[in-house]
C-alpha cells in the first residue's frame, strides 16, 4: 500500500510526466551525421580497437547494406533515414578514468538526477553500476571488489582491448552478425556497453547494473552487452535506460548476448524508460533491440525480466536458446503503452535439448491511443524430449481507443513435449474502481493499485530495489489514462 501511496504522491508532485526529460549541458564530441565505412573505422579507432575487431565491424556493415528493414511487426513509424543520424557521441576529454573523482561533476549530477548513485559511498549495498552516457561508458563502480571474486565487469570497449580471447570467443556467438537488420547495424557501429564474465563456480557477490542514457540530439545509441557465466556461476544483472524529451525520434538499437554454461544461471532485468514521446505522439525513442540468451550448458538457466514503459516504438524479443539438457528459460514481462506508444514485444523459447523447460508470463497494458502487441514463439525441436512450456499472456485495456494484441507461435516437433498457452484480455472493471473509490482511494491511486495487482507476478521477479522503482513507474506511466 505504501508504494501505491508513493506512486500517487509522485504523480501529484510531478510537474511533467517524464522526469528524465532534461538535457545535460556538457561538451560532447559527436561524429558527423551519416553512415559509411569511414564512420565505422572512426568508431573503431576512437576505441583503440585491434584490427580483428575493425574487420568484424566492417564485415557487419557490408552485410547490413544488403539487408532490408523488417516490416512484420505491428508498429508504424516514418521511414528512418540512417544517414541523418550520428553514430558516435561522447562526453569530451575523459578518455581514461582512474576513479569516480575524475568524472565530470556534471555527469555525476545527471546520474544523481536519474536516481542512480554512482558514488560508491551512496551506493545501495551490493550494487555495482556501469553507466553509459551516449556512446561511452563513463564509470564502473566496485571494480576492485568484483575483481577479488574473479568477476570481470567493465565497458565492452575495455574488454575488447584487455580480454580479447573472451570477446573473440563469445561475441556474435549468440546473435550472429547477420541475425537481423538492427543487430547487424549494431554490430557495425556499436560504441559501448557492458561486459560481464563470471568464472567457474563463482556466485557474483553483488547485483550488477548498467544505466544507459542518451543525451546528445540527432544521435543514435547502439550498445552491446555480453554476459558470460561459466560452469556453475551465477549473476544477476539490471539495466535501466532514460533519454531527454525531444521532438525528433532517436534510434536505439542494442544487442545483448548471454551465455550460460553447465549449471550456470543468469538473471537479466530491464527497466526500460526511454522517452516515450509526448501526448500527441511527437518525439520519443525508437527502440529496436535484439536480446538473446544461450543456455549452452546442461542444467543452465536464463531468466529475462522486463518492465517496458518508455519508447515511442518498442521492437524487442528477449529470447532463450535451450540447448543444454535440463536447461530452463524464463521470460517475465510488463509492457505499458500509453498515449501514442507502440510496443511489439515478446520472446522466443527454442527448445533443443532434452527436458528443457520454459515459462512465459507477459502482462500488456494499453491506454490512450497506444497499441501493445505480444509476439512470441515457442519452438520444440525433434530431440527435445519431455520439453515443457507454459505461456500466460494477459492484456489490460484502459480506454476505448487503444489496442491489445497477442500473436503466439507454437511449433512442436516432439510428441513427448508439452506446450500450453493461455491468454486473456480484460479491462479495469467499473466495479473494481467503484469499490476502491468507495473506500476512499482516489481514482488515480485505484488504477495504480489494480494495475500493480495485475502485474504482480512479474514485479515479484525483479530484484527488490528495482521492484519498488518499477511499481512507481507503472503508476506514473498510466497517469491521466482514466477519467
Amino acid at each position, binding site marked *: 500500500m505504501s508504494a501505491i501511496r508513493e506512486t500517487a504522491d509522485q504523480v501529484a508532485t510531478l510537474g511533467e510526466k517524464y522526469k528524465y526529460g532534461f538535457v545535460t549541458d556538457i561538451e560532447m564530441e559527436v561524429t558527423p551525421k551519416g553512415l559509411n565505412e569511414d564512420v565505422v573505422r572512426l568508431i573503431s579507432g576512437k576505441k583503440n580497437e585491434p584490427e580483428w575487431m575493425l574487420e568484424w565491424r566492417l564485415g557487419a556493415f557490408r552485410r547490413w547494406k544488403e539487408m532490408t528493414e523488417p516490416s512484420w511487426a505491428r508498429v508504424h513509424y516514418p521511414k528512418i533515414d540512417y544517414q541523418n543520424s550520428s553514430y558516435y557521441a561522447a562526453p569530451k576529454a575523459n578518455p581514461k578514468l582512474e576513479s569516480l573523482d575524475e568524472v565530470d561533476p556534471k555527469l555525476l549530477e545527471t546520474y544523481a538526477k536519474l536516481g542512480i548513485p554512482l558514488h560508491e559511498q551512496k551506493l545501495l549495498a551490493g550494487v555495482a553500476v556501469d553507466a553509459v552516457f551516449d556512446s561511452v561508458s563513463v564509470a564502473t563502480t566496485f571494480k576492485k571488489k568484483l575483481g577479488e571474486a574473479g568477476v570481470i565487469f567493465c565497458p565492452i570497449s575495455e574488454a575488447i582491448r584487455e580480454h580479447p580471447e573472451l570477446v573473440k570467443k563469445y561475441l556474435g556467438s549468440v546473435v550472429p552478425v547477420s541475425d537481423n537488420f538492427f543487430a547487424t547495424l549494431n554490430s557495425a557501429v556499436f560504441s559501448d556497453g557492458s561486459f560481464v564474465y563470471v568464472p567457474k563456480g563463482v556466485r557474483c557477490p553483488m547485483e550488477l547494473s548498467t544505466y544507459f542514457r542518451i543525451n546528445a540530439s540527432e544521435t543514435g545509441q547502439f550498445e552491446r552487452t555480453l554476459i558470460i557465466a561459466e560452469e556453475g556461476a551465477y549473476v544477476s544483472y539490471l539495466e535501466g535506460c532514460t533519454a531527454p524529451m525531444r521532438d525528433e525520434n532517436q534510434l536505439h538499437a542494442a544487442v545483448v548476448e548471454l551465455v550460460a554454461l553447465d549449471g550456470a544461471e543468469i538473471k537479466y532485468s530491464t527497466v526500460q524508460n526511454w522517452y516515450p514521446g509526448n501526448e500527441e505522439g511527437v518525439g520519443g525513442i525508437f527502440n529496436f533491440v535484439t536480446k538473446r540468451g544461450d543456455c549452452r550448458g546442461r542444467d543452465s538457466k536464463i531468466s529475462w525480466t522486463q518492465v517496458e514503459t518508455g519508447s515511442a516504438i518498442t521492437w524487442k524479443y528477449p529470447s532463450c536458446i535451450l540447448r543444454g539438457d535440463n536447461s530452463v528459460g524464463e521470460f517475465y514481462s510488463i509492457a505499458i503503452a500509453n498515449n501514442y506508444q507502440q510496443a511489439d514485444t515478446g520472446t522466443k523459447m527454442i527448445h533443443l535439448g532434452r527436458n528443457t523447460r520454459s515459462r512465459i508470463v507477459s502482462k500488456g497494458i494499453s491506454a490512450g491511443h497506444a497499441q501493445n502487441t505480444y509476439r512470441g514463439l515457442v519452438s520444440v525441436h525433434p530431440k527435445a524430449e519431455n520439453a515443457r512450456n507454459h505461456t500466460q499472456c494477459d492484456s489490460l485495456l484502459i480506454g476505448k481507443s487503444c489496442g491489445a494484441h*497477442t500473436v503466439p507461435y507454437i511449433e512442436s516437433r516432439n510428441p513427448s513435449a508439452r*506446450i500450453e498457452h493461455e491468454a486473456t484480455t480484460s479491462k479495469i472493471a467499473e466495479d473494481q474502481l467503484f469499490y476502491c473509490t468507495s473506500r476512499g482511494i482516489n481514482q488515480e491511486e485505484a488504477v495504480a493499485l489494480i494495475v500493480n495487482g495485475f502485474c504482480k507476478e512479474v514485479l515479484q521477479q525483479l530484484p527488490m530495489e528495482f521492484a519498488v522503482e518499477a511499481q512507481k513507474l507503472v503508476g506514473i506511466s498510466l497517469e491521466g489514462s482514466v477519467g
Partner: protein
Amino acid sequence: MTTRAASPNPFLEDFAAHAAELPGVGQPWLDARRADAIKLVRAQGIPHRRIEDWKYTDLRSALEGTNDPGKAPSVARLRNAVEQGIEVFEFKGDAPKWVVDGFGVIGIDGTMSAASFALAQSTIALHVPANAKPAKPLEYEFSGQTRLLIVVEAGAAVTLLETPIGGDDSFSNAGIEIVLYEGAKLNHIRTASNAASAIVLEDLTVQVASAAQYRAHFMSTGTKLSRTELHVTLEGKGAEAHVSGVSVLGDGRHADVTTHIVHAAADTRSTQLFKDIAGGHSRGVYQGKITVAEGADGSDSRQTAKGLLLGVHAEIDLKPELEIYADDVKCAHGAAVGDLDVESLFYLGSRGIPEAEARALLMRAFLGDAVDEIENADIRASVWSKVEAALAKATEAKP
C-alpha cells in the same frame, strides 16, 4: 528477402488461355471484377513460406510437383435437387440482382481467392429465400478452380455439405462467399478429400448480419498440401459464429486451417474449437485470428486449439492470434500441444485396458468434443466414421 527470377505464374497463363470461355463472360460488371481479380493475382504472386500468413504452407514449392493447376478440370455442382424455392444460377444468361450484389463482392482478399474468382470455369450461385428451412442439406462438390456464392435471406436456415472430389495429383482451389441476412442460419460441414497427393485450397468468406448464425465444422485428413482459409465478419449486433474442426493426419499429409473472425458489431459471439492429431511425416497447422473492432463492445470470443503428435517426424504449428481494439470485451484463447495424459493412461491401465486400446480411447475422446459440435446427428455420425478411419491410418503410420 529472396525473390525468385520471375517464375511463370500458372494462374496468369490459365487466364490468358481461357478468359474468353469463362461463365457469364461479356457481362460488364463480371468482366470488370475478373479483371481486378487477375490484377491482384499478378501483383501478389503465388504464396510461399516467406509470406507471414503462408509460413507453414508453402504453396509455391508444392506447385513445383505434379499438380498442374492449368490441367485441373473445373467442377462445381450440387449432388441433389433443391427444394423450397431455392434458386440456382449457373451463369447462363443475365445475372439476377442478388448475384450482382454478392458475387465477388466480399470474397476477394488474396491471390488464391482472386484466382478462383478470375479462373473458375464452373461456378454456382444459390439463393435461399426468406424463412425457407429445407430439410435436406445442400450437397456441394468441387474440383479445380471453382466459385460458389450462397445468399441466405432473413430467417432462413440451411445446411451445406461440402466435399472436394479432385483425384490424385489434382489441384483444387475453391472460393466460397456466404451472405447471411438477419436471423439466418447456415450449418456448414466440410469433409475431407480422399486424394493423398492432391493440393486442395479453399477460401471461405462469410458475412453475418445481426442475430444470424454461421456454424461450421471442417473435417480434414490432409493431403499433400491442403488449406482451408475462413474469413468471417460478424457485422450485426448479436451475430454469431461457431467453428470447429478436426485434422487427423497420416503419413505424408498436410492440413492447414486458417481462420480470421472479425467482431465488427456489439454483442457478437464466436467460438472456435480445433483438434489436430499428426502421425508419420505430417504437419497440422492452425492459425486463428480474432479481431475485435473499435466499438464492438460486449463481444465474447473463445478459441481453443489443441494438438497431439504421434511421432518425431510429425509437426504441429499453432498460432492463435488476438487483435483487440475495444475494451469491454471477453476474449480468451488457449492452445496446447502435447502427448496423451499419462495419468489417464495409467488409470485405464489399472482397469485392465491394454495400452494400445487405452491410447485409442483417449484419442477418440480428444477428437470427440470437436466433432460433437456438429448439430445434425446423421451428419455427425458420418463425419465420425471418417474420423475413425483416418485415426486408424494415422496411428498405423507411427514410425
